[in-house]
């Protein structure tokens, strides 16, 4: 018997939170311009929203020193600012993005203290914002689309964000929100690899950026329901390296506090995180493996 109670939400309704890398230091070095990149992304967003009327898209811009929501499809007002042939939906996005970029630039000029900082984006900030948004959606009632996060990142990792990023990743894991990542830079991002690995998302590094739209639709438009029966790229190898808490350097080997699992690149007398006093290392100068532990991959 066809039940009177029809299912209220079909399986493939999704909420996509897109983290957009707007770091000017990165975009000045790429083969495609930011606007070309943006046209691929906008088409992708349009496609995602076209797949289901209930699909929702949120875009968060990740800048050099700040991040902000720049688009939310659920709250777009109906006044269409259709001008110069742009899709009505995205004129507000572009406007906000422009505001954001200028504001971000000002901010980064203000605090030019850390000259030696790597030109990384504030991934930890935007990840947390995305998770906050998703948390709100979860609390809005039992009827919500299935959320997932997609990081479109190009700039390299900022080791100083290590703790914050890892914490975000673990909360995403707890919420069972997969973090997909599409790395468009030249190096490889250990953060993104770990994020996707731990949360069960997909990590991919497109070979050619000209065909970004095809990569995005083929891999990252797949809703969580369909992922159960579609071939998706598998991780070839995940970079599990951690950053030390003292100098924020990415390290292969280091010291770990046996109480709170903080990581240090050199020996300390006392843990700076939890205050435990370490015993004198017996093999201080000997390069033995026993006191230099690798950080275990699946904390």
């Amino acid at each position: 018997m066809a039940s009177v109670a029809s299912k209220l939400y079909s399986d493939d309704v999704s909420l996509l939170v897109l983290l957009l890398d707007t770091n000017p230091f990165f975009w000045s070095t790429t083969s495609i311009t930011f606007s070309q990149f943006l046209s691929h992304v906008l088409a992708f967003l349009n496609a995602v929203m076209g797949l289901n009327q209930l699909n929702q898209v949120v875009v968060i811009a990740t800048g050099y020193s700040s991040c902000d929501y720049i688009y939310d499809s659920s709250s777009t007002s109906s006044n269409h600012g259709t001008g110069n042939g742009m899709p009505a939906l995205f004129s507000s996005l572009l406007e906000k993005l422009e505001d954001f970029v200028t504001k971000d630039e000002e901010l980064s000029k203000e605090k030019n203290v850390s000259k030696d900082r790597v030109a990384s984006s504030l991934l930890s900030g935007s990840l947390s914002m995305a998770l906050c948004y998703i948390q709100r959606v979860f609390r809005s009632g039992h009827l919500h689309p299935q959320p997932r996060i997609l990081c479109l990142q190009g700039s390299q990792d900022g080791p100083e964000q290590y703790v914050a990023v890892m914490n975000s990743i673990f909360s995403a894991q707890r919420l069972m929100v997969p973090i997909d990542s599409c790395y468009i830079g030249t190096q490889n991002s250990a953060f993104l690899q770990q994020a996707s690995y731990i949360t069960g998302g997909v990590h991919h590094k497109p070979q050619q950026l000209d065909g970004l739209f095809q990569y995005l639709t083929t891999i990252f438009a797949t809703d969580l329901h369909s992922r159960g029966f579609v071939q998706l790229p598998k991780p070839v190898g995940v970079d599990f390296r951690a950053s030390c808490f003292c100098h924020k350097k990415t390290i292969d080997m280091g010291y770990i506090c046996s109480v709170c699992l903080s990581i240090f690149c050199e020996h300390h007398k006392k843990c700076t995180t939890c205050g435990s006093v370490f015993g004198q290392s017996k093999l201080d100068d000997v390069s033995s493996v026993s006191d230099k532990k690798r950080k275990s991959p699946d904390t």
Partner: protein
Amino acid sequence: MPQVRIIAKNFMDMVASLPAIKLDKLYNNVFICEAILRSLPPLAKKYVLQMLYITDPVPATMMEEWVLADGASKHRVAIDRLIQLRIFSEISDRKKGTSYNLNPTFQNNLQKHIISGGVLPREPMNSDNAIKLPSLQELETYALKQWECFLLQLINSGHGEKLTGISSSMMKIFQRGLMSQRDRDGPRLTESGFQFLLMDTNSQLWYIIREYISNAEERDVDPADLISFLLELSFHVTGEAYNLNTLTDVQRNTLKDLADLGLVKLQQGRKDSWFIPTKLATNLSVSLADSSVRKEGFVVMETNFRMYAYSTSKLQCEILRLFARIEYQLPNLIACAITKESLYNAFDNGITSDQIITFLQQNSHPRCADRVPSIPENVTDQIRLWEADLKRIEMTQAHFYDEFPSKDVFEAACDFAREWGGLLWEDSKRMRLVVKSEIHNQMREFLHTQSK
């Protein structure tokens, strides 16, 4: 158990059954491409998106590699659907095997849609215009009121004042299948009619729209045009006013009918007329697959079988009357009781206990809906028991065999029937047996070979 035959679960089945030329014509409209894309199964959506910018045919063997082994059946369903809707065209090559191509018109339109977004053929009215637009709340109330009026007229056609502007001939069409015309006691709701009333608004709406479309040819309207207009309508923004003069005559006539159903609200301005789509209209393309309108419940069911319904609606009262005894009515409250007689009456009319229970569950008052279970268990159990009371006997079509030539043949026949799962009764002493009529043919063949 009676089957609910009347739910038009998938509107796209109707679209798929259109002749090829009409279907190709439909794809000229960007919004229809979009609506159809949305109605596809998830995997099919993915294929379309993936092949959006591929112009060469994609070999079937390659597509099979896109899915995991578990997804093979889903893959086939998706491909079949795409071919059925003529979105994919199949190209068979003896050397390379089968390959698929995306319908070029469809592909083009979707590409356009994805890059530049959809632009409706008509602009909404500027907000600085003099006419005051109804608020979303008002609009929703209007839509539901209109829909209720329509339903009331539908079930009360014999003795009811004319509430809506729907012509009686149109009403007859909608009633077809829901009401039986009898000379003596006037029109009566049929089994499916009762089931129809217990469905949620969106399913009801789809049933009516489907009837409306399938009847289009009798009114000299092309069903394809009608479908395309309805789908287009679902992309309009709820609560915005659109000018009527952007429509063709046929569309304007259709719109009048839709206004009677509560899908749009017509508003007369000083010079122009406007139409304002309501939530019912904009949900049309959603409800192709699923419904999302949730009404607040109003029924409080007590363990002593008494039921209090906080409703002023005449229609709700009529619906409750289908399976409960109305005891008295206060301005905002209907008090009724579920009794054995009232339920027997309902079962007689072909309503099942499950339908009644789901109806009660779906419409239970917010305060009760929080409780688990929202309907007292003794009531649901009793409703089921009373239904089971009426079904003490189960009927099965069967065939009776006797006069077997020998014990061996009889035994072999018994074993054969048991193997097929069709043995109902056997009497080995007098060599008689009864089997389900489904396997009568196999049985006969078997006995033929035995007798040789």
